[in-house]
């Protein structure tokens, strides 16, 4: 089977990068405490796994991210749908939501720690807060801008009231909601790390922070790699799940509408 030229080129580039790094660290030209060799990083990563420390940090981070993400997303969908359906509610709270949305969510880290301490509550709150806005704005737009043509088709087939809402409005808004959720995945990761760096007793962010204090640059790199892997696999799993659960998503109309999605400012 033929391997594409790009694959080969990518492989060569990657190997060259890590090879050069390894050589540089071992050569003595740079301090190998400041820049540990890839092989050293792999070794310390392995020992962190074996002694159970990395799984513990990773578990804590994943749990926070998941709880915060779900809480923020559920609330955002509910508020977004309600605001799109009830003009009075929209009129009442829209200025407030827009105001809070304008503040970068990372700026709330010190406040959240002051209010909720360095325990789980502050982290979950911050993640939920960060996740809320992209999901909210996309849900609101998706429900508000349901296709008038499909609305007519549905009405001429007898759809009205809650059935119209459940079978036409919500599915029609799903491409927007999904886009919002996807943006929020990366937001959740950013906020998670910021919150853990600012103060925690567990977590991948804490691992990086603590390793810095004990001059374990190799462990800091392990933390960075784990975070990268978390973000990558979260996005991959999300995409797989969407493709599996909503096979129509991304095709036809959904694809065309995707381009218009207003991106919420990320954290």
């Amino acid at each position, binding site marked *: 089977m033929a391997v594409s030229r790009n694959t080969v080129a990518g492989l060569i580039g990657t190997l060259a990068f890590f090879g050069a790094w390894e050589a540089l660290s071992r050569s003595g030209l740079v301090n190998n405490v400041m820049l540990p060799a890839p092989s050293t990083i792999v070794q310390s990563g392995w020992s962190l796994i074996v002694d159970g420390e990395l799984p513990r940090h990773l578990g804590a981070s994943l749990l926070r991210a998941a709880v915060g993400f779900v809480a923020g997303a559920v609330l955002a969908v509910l508020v977004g749908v309600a605001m799109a359906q009830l003009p009075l509610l929209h009129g009442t709270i829209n200025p407030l939501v827009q105001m809070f949305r304008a503040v970068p969510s990372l700026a709330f880290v010190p406040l959240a720690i002051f209010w909720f301490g360095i325990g789980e509550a502050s982290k979950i709150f911050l993640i939920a807060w960060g996740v809320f806005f992209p999901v909210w704005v996309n849900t609101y737009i998706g429900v508000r801008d349901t296709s008038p*043509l*499909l609305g*007519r*088709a*549905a*009405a*001429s*087939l*007898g*759809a*009205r009231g809650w*059935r119209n809402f459940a*079978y*036409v409005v919500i*599915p*029609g808004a*799903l491409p927007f909601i999904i886009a919002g959720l996807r943006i929020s995945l990366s937001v959740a990761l950013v906020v998670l790390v910021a919150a853990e760096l600012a103060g925690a007793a567990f977590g991948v962010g804490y691992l990086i922070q603590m390793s810095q204090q004990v001059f374990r640059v190799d462990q800091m790199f392990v933390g960075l790699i784990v975070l990268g892997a978390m973000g990558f696999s979260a996005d991959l799993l999300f995409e797989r799940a969407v493709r599996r659960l*909503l*096979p*129509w*998503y991304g*095709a*036809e*109309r*959904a694809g065309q509408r995707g381009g218009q999605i207003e991106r919420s400012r990320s954290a």
Partner: protein
Amino acid sequence: MNARVEISPQIAVDQPLITCVDLGHVYDSGRGQTTALGNVSLTIDRGELVCVLGPSGCGKTTLLNILAGFVAPTHGDIRVNGSAIEGPSAERGVVFQDYSLFPWLTAQANVEFGLRMAGLAARERAGIARDLLRLVGLPEAGAKYPFELSGGMKQRIAIARALATRPSLLLMDEPFAALDAMTRSSLQTRLIDIHRQEQPTILFVTHNIAEALFLASRLIVMSANPGRIVEDIRVDLPRPRRRTSPRFNELYEHLERAIGLETAE
């Protein structure tokens, strides 16, 4: 020629399905008024396959939208089955030019949609949908999503969907206009078959003279400024119709004149 039909005050036992009296619609764009539909009066009997033919701006789509319940007429009276139209209803099925299938539903679920809204049980829905998919010649397409179907297949699914609730009236708004010539012609033949089998009353809007002549049992010609009926003829061509027959061409030329194409070109 005036196509106005006089309505007798008492309703006969075999009353027409649709009765319009002095029906009109005026759009107010804020910068003046546009009369999309002047005073249109007509009756349509059950089982007719009526084609409404006319250039753009003649009010044919406005007439269809009023019948569908999407647009309320600004004046005049319109009755379907003896009662006034109050918004869209599954009683009046609509087939749109752009198909308007729900992209998140499979073909089968699209066909079942109206039945689901009516609260029918899943098993009954599936049975009806299967029959309709067979009727439109797509018995194998049930599990496919709209994005997996060609334009012609989508429109057949849309027709099946509109027929599912057994509407007394099927409104078709230039349904084949976006399709290529071969697909269009095969769907025209299929529509005639469906009409023969199911006997729905169909109001078919088109700007295509040949299409109207091929399909219609009755042909209503409309003209613009203001939108009005200029001719209302029974199409007596025997079926299956041949587009090359002398009578077909005679009528074609007559309709061209009626629409005013000859003077325009």
